[in-house]
Every structure is written in C-alpha cells, then in structure tokens.
C-alpha cells in the first residue's frame, strides 16, 4: 500500500457527501433503524425457533434462542461496544465454521455411509415399512369423509365383495348394498353417512392416503395403493422395543443391534437399512490399519506433498527469474511484458483449468499438435504425464503471483548492499546467492509457506484438470493425481463405491493435522505471531 500510506490523509477531516449520507444513519435515525433491524431479526429467529421445536429439534431450537438473546443483550445494553462490531461476523463464523468443525469431528467417530444415513428411529420405521408384504387380499377403494368430516376408506373386497368402512382404528363391515361398484370398478355410495372425496381434493390427499393404515387382524393392515384400490399388508418382521430386536415372524430368526448401525442375525444376515451411530475410533484407526484405506492414503499423501512442493518450487523459481530478467530500469517494453505476463493471474483460475484440460486432451488437444513429432504425450491419461501436467498447469497459473511478489521484494532490497558486495569483488552469482536471495527470502518465505499450504488443498487444480484420474493401479477411489482433499471429496460424494461420510471426515481431520503442523512450524520459524499488537 505504499502509495496510500506514504502520503497520509490530511488531518483536517472533510467528510464526503457519501460519508455524510452514511453517517446520517447512525444518529437518531440510525438508532431507530437499528431497533427495527433487531426486531426483524428477533421475529425471524423466534419463528425459526418454533419451527425447530415443532420439528423435534429442541436442542437446535434452544441454541438459536440462546443466540438471539445474546444478540439482544449486546445491542440493547449500552456497554460492550467492541462486541457490537464483532458480533455480525461472529454469527457466521459460528454457524458455518465452528459448528462444521464440531460436526466433522463428530462424524469421524460415526459409521455414516451409504446404507447408514438414517437415525436409528428412522431406520426402525423404514425396516417396518419394508418388511410389509401383501397377504393377497385386495380391495376396491373410495376415500370419503364420515359424518364428522374425518377421512375414512370405503372398501369392497375384490373376491368376496364384502363391503367395509376402514378407519385408523380398524375395519367395520357395512350392511350389504351400502356401497356399489360400477362397470369401471369405481366404488360409489348413496349412503348419507359418507361423502365421497372427488376431483381436486383427492389430489391434495395423496400423501395422507399413502400413509393411511387400517389395522386388521394381528399386525396386518390395509394400505391404499393409489386412490382407487387398497391391499392388505402383513409385516414379515416384528420389532420388540424392549429387547431392541427384530424377529422374522415365519422363521423365528432374531436380528440384534450389532453396535455398528445394523440389525444382524446370528448367521450374519443384516437387515437393510442400517443407521448412523457412534463407533468410536474405527474410522480413525482404519487410516492406519485397514490396508484398503491406508495404502491409498499414504500414496495420496506422498503425491500431495510432491505436488504442493513442486508447484511452489517451479512457480517461485520461474517467477523470480522473470522478475530478475525484467527488473532492469529502462528496459524497453517492461510494462508491456509485465501486463501480458500477469494474464494467467487475472483470469479466474477455473476457466483456464478447464481450457488447459481441453488443450492437453489426447485426441483434440492443441498441445500435441503444436509439439514437434515424437514429443506428443498422453498428457492427462497416463499416470506419470498426468502428474507432470498438473504441476505444469499449476505452475503456469502461479508464476505471475510470484513474479509480482518477487518484483516488489527486489525493489525493497537496498541497492547499496549489492553495490558493496560488487566492490568487494563478488561475482554476479555470488551477489545473488549471498545478498539478494537471503534478503528476498525474508519477505517471500511466509508467502512460500502460505502457497504450499494453499496448494496442499488445491482442489480446483486437480479436480478440474484430471478429476484425480487416471485410475491408479490399486483400483481405489483415489486416482493417480488425487490429492488428499479431492480424495476426501470422492470418499464422501462420489457414488462409485458408496459414500462414506465417516471415513471422509476422519481423513479430513488428518489433512487438517498435517496442514496445521506445517503452518505451525512456519509461524514458529517466521515468528509472525510476535507482531500481534
């Protein structure tokens, strides 16, 4: 910011029109606006809290309530002025950074994957529904309202032609002739006790009908199949809430909670679906012990380090070289060169990554066409060349950054030092190695570390260029150019081998530990923390 800090703003303060306009809002008007805004926030939050409570999420309701009370206190009490300024950003920090951190850790200790996404009570419900099998008895159906306006089912047994009315309590036989069935199999009635539901109202009842059960003998129940027919269903599994087991009603086989989110029989048969549940350290230790997880993880970790280091090394080396080449006062076209060289930095990265993926393409790619014969390569489809391409393109994108940084840093090196070294008879190489580079590093070292940490998690550069491919020899989810973060992404969101949120969270905790260690060492070495005033 040399150009803004060097010439200090004039000490005599003359507000611009804009400033005065804005400032007007912080007087009495401002106080009124603040109260209105606060009232709106309160109203919105209280509505949200009622929603949360009615949706059985009382804990989150309480947390939200606590947050809004805290906000009210901060803004209505006269003191705590810093809190008034810090609070708005902090809300988002808590909601979308701190809570996610907590969730990540919590998920890492759960079995939470394809087949284990429901909560236990949801899973029990789902198992009950899935175990329902038709008994073979079917009915013609007409939804109707009884005298008190409640939804009932008018049913005609398709075989015996017996007429019934079904409610949520049970099935009652009706006197013969109350209902009639026309040629198309549509049930009608002339009875004044029941009012048939037709037309538009019928469509709005879709969901209610699908969930309507008329209990019959034992555990069996009649369930509507659409709006014109119904079938009697009977569960094949019986749930025992006391022992927390399912029993197969025909064979008597008992399925028990195995502690890992499934009901399992003695012979190992599982009932689908399972549920998410805490399983302790299994996901974490899998990264060390399970060869199916450990081997890809180590391979990916190694490549991640090579990639991040390679990208930073080449970017900085080339960027510095360009800076030195251009850093000569009076060099012709210097500004033009510089403007053209920063183009890769000015264009949003994702666009150029997608473009490079096209340019390096085997069949259509221009790179292979331009290269002299014999130099064409399967740039993106061979494990080795794909790695080279990823580092190359990342370097292409990052060189301008380090060129700009190096130019700035070179200018800050006092010319006398270089001169003095030359007078003492140092060669150009010696001057560079013993004087320029060490001084440059003071400024650039933190940026190199930051760039390393950034590339360590540079999802875009991998995913948009090779999508982590080509497939590696071990046939794991991780392709040969996948870095840890894209490996995590695939574990969690790419359906190929099922999604595993638990393992993905465990891996991301490892990624965090690795990055934190690197950054920690870096901060310690550069002593950046000393500057905290």
């Amino acid at each position, binding site marked *: *910011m040399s150009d803004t*800090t060097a010439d200090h*703003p004039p*000490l005599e*303060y003359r*507000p611009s029109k804009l*400033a005065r306009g804005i*400032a007007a809002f912080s007087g009495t008007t401002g106080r009124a606006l603040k109260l209105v805004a606060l009232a709106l926030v309160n109203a919105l939050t209280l509505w949200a809290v009622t929603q*949360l409570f009615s949706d059985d999420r009382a804990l989150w309701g309480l947390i939200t309530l606590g947050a809004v009370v805290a906000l009210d206190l901060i803004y209505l009490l006269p003191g705590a002025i*810093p*809190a*008034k*300024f*810090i609070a708005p*950003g*902090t809300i*988002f920090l808590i909601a*979308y950074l701190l809570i*996610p951190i907590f*969730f*990540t850790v919590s998920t890492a200790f759960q079995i939470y994957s394809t087949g284990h996404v429901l909560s236990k009570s949801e899973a029990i419900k789902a198992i009950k529904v899935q175990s329902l099998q038709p008994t073979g008895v079917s009915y013609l159906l007409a939804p109707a309202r009884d005298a008190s306006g409640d939804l009932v089912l008018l049913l005609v047994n398709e075989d015996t032609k017996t007429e019934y009315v079904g409610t949520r309590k049970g099935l009652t036989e009706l006197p013969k002739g109350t209902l009639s069935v026309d040629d198309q199999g549509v049930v009608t009635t002339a009875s004044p006790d029941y009012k048939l539901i037709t037309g538009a109202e019928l469509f709005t009842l879709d969901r209610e009908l699908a969930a309507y059960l008329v209990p019959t003998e034992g555990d069996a129940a009649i369930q509507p199949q659409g709006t014109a027919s119904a079938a009697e269903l009977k569960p094949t599994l019986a749930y025992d809430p006391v022992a927390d087991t399912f029993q197969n009603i025909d064979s008597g086989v008992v399925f028990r909670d195995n502690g890992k989110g499934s009901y399992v029989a003695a012979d190992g048969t599982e009932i689908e679906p399972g549920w998410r549940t805490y399983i302790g350290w299994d996901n974490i230790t899998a990264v060390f012990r399970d060869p199916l997880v450990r081997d890809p993880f180590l391979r990916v970790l190694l490549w991640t380090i090579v990639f991040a280091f390679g990208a930073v090394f080449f970017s900085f080396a080339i960027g510095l*070289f*360009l800076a030195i080449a251009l850093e*000569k006062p*009076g060099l*012709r076209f210097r500004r033009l*060169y510089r403007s*053209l*060289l920063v183009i*890769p*930095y000015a*264009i949003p*990265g*994702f*666009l*150029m990554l997608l*473009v*490079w993926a*096209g340019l390096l393409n085997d*069949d*259509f*790619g221009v790179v292979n066409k331009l290269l002299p014969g014999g130099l064409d390569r399967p740039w993106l489809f061979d494990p080795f060349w794909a790695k080279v391409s990823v580092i190359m393109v990342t370097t292409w994108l990052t*060189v301008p*950054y380090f060129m700009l940084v190096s130019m*700035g*840093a070179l200018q*800050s090196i006092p010319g006398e030092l270089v*001169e003095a070294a030359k007078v003492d008879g140092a060669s150009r190489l010696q001057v560079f190695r013993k004087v320029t580079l060490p001084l440059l590093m003071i400024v650039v070292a933190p940026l190199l570390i*930051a760039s390393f940490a950034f590339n360590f*998690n540079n*999802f875009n550069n991998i995913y*948009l260029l090779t999508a982590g491919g080509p497939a590696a020899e071990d046939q794991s989810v991780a392709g040969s150019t996948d870095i840890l*973060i894209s490996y995590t992404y695939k574990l*969690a*969101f790419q359906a190929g081998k099922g999604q595993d949120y638990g393992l*993905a*969270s465990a891996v*991301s905790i490892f990624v965090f530990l690795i990055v934190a260690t690197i950054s920690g060492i870096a901060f310690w070495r550069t002593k950046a*923390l000393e500057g*905290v005033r």
Partner: protein
Amino acid sequence: MTTLDQTEELAVPRVAEGHPAPSRRRLGDNWWRHLVAIIAVLVSVFPAVYVVSSAFNADQSIGGASIIPRSFTLDNFKQLFNPPSDKSETNYPRWFLNSIFVATFTAFFTVMLGALAAYAFSRFRFKGRRMGMLFLLLIQMFPQLLMLVALYLIVLRTGEVFPALGLNHLLALMLVYLGGVMGVNVWLMKGFFDSIPSELDESARVDGATPSQIFWGVILPLAAPVLAVVGLFSFVGVFNEFAIASVLLEVKDQRTLPLGLQIFIDQQYGERWGPFAAGVLIAAIPAVLLFAYLQKFIVSGLTRGSVKG
C-alpha cells in the same frame, strides 16, 4: 557469457548515477532479457489467445481450430445462449447471473462484516482482544474445504426445516461462504485501519461522533483501498469456488459457472469446444475488468499482506 557479464557490470553504475544509456545501445546487453520475456509472454498468453480465436471460429471442434480464425462467426455465442433443445443440461445465462450474484453478495458482506470486526480490533482496547486476533489467525488453518461433509450435512438438515437455507438454494451457499469471512480479511483490514491516524477519530469524537459514526464516516471512506482489495479477492475467490458449490447445488438452474461449464465441456471437446470458448471468454470479463481496475492496489497488497502476516 563472461564478456556479457562484464559489460553488464559496467552498465550498472551508470544507471545508478542517473545517466541511462540510450536504449538502442542497451538492447545489446539486454537481449537475453527480451528473449526470456518474449518466450514467457508467448507461453502465458497462448491459452487465452487460443480461446478468443476459438470463440469466433466457425470450426467448433478443438483440434480443427487454428489460432487465426479462417472465418469469423458469432454462432458460438448464439449457441451458448440458445442451445438446441437436446442440450437441455445447459443454461449459461442463468449460471453467469448466479455466479455474479453469489460473488457480489459474498464480496459485499465479506467487506462489511470484516471491516466491522477489524474496526473493533483496531480502535478499541478490550479484554480478549489479543486472544481474539490469535483465534482468527488459528481459524485460518481450517479452510471450509476440509469441512465439506459437515457443511453438506448441516445444509441438508437445515433444509429439512427451512427449505430456503437447504440444498439447491443460492442463499444457503452464500451464507456458507460468509462463514469464512473472519480470518485473514480481518487481519488485513485491521492492519490498514491501524495506519489511519487516530487523531482523526479523536477530533470526530470531540465533535460528538459516536463509534458507529466514526466507523461509517471516518474510517470506511479512508480505508477504500483495502476494502477494494478484500472485496476483489473475495469476489474472485467465490467466483472460482467449485467444491462447496458442487456439493450444495445439484439442479441445473442453480449451478454457478464453474459447475455449469465443467459439466458442459466434460469430455465433449469435440462437439462443444466453440460454445465453451465463447462461455469462457464472457465469464472472464468481470474478473479481468475488476483486476485491471484495482491492479495498483493488488500488487502492493500482495507484499504488504505478507509482511503483516
């Protein structure tokens, strides 16, 4: 090379004395600088030039396009905006607007929320201030990318109660991005605010200004350069963001540009290169304009940010 080196060394003192030799003669010493620069320029502009040429080239396939278009056409742009019905997975105008909307919204609130916090850290002395700053530095080590699974699950479940904050809603995506506001932005802005003389606040306070009046009326207008830089980086960062958006937005019409273009071109370089290049060209415009406009702030901002941590 040795002779060259010697002449080079001789040339340096003359420059230092302020008598630059006429550039015609100096071209001899500088030939390698020009050579390096020209090669580097060719490598760095080649993809961009190729995209521009493909966008206006009548031949749609990537391999068929030559650097200089044989025939000029706007068909690629037309096709991008009115795709034939069989490419129903495409809605470029919508993606573009989504991206601009999300990036602008996020950049604006990033600047606002960040500046508010930075003002408190810069101008007030309160308990926990140092801890707060260190905490923000620490939190910087947890990029949201690492919490992809958690963010997905949180947005999924929030959406079960409040659909507008759930999956496939841009609002949810923007709020998630705002979770990453506090951190390096606050540090950067605090550093700049510290350099604004506190005498200005004092005199405003003597005149009866409240802290919020000082913030809006004194600090913010003077801090325009740093606000611009933070806003630009936030805009470009969000504009580029792929992973979180790809997890939260699943429907065609809610996609942002990175998602849309990636799916559009995915392994279809043969048929779609032309319209794709047109799309890249248009998508590059906002960020390049912003970059050009704010360039002088950026260059100094890069090194300044580094020294300040």
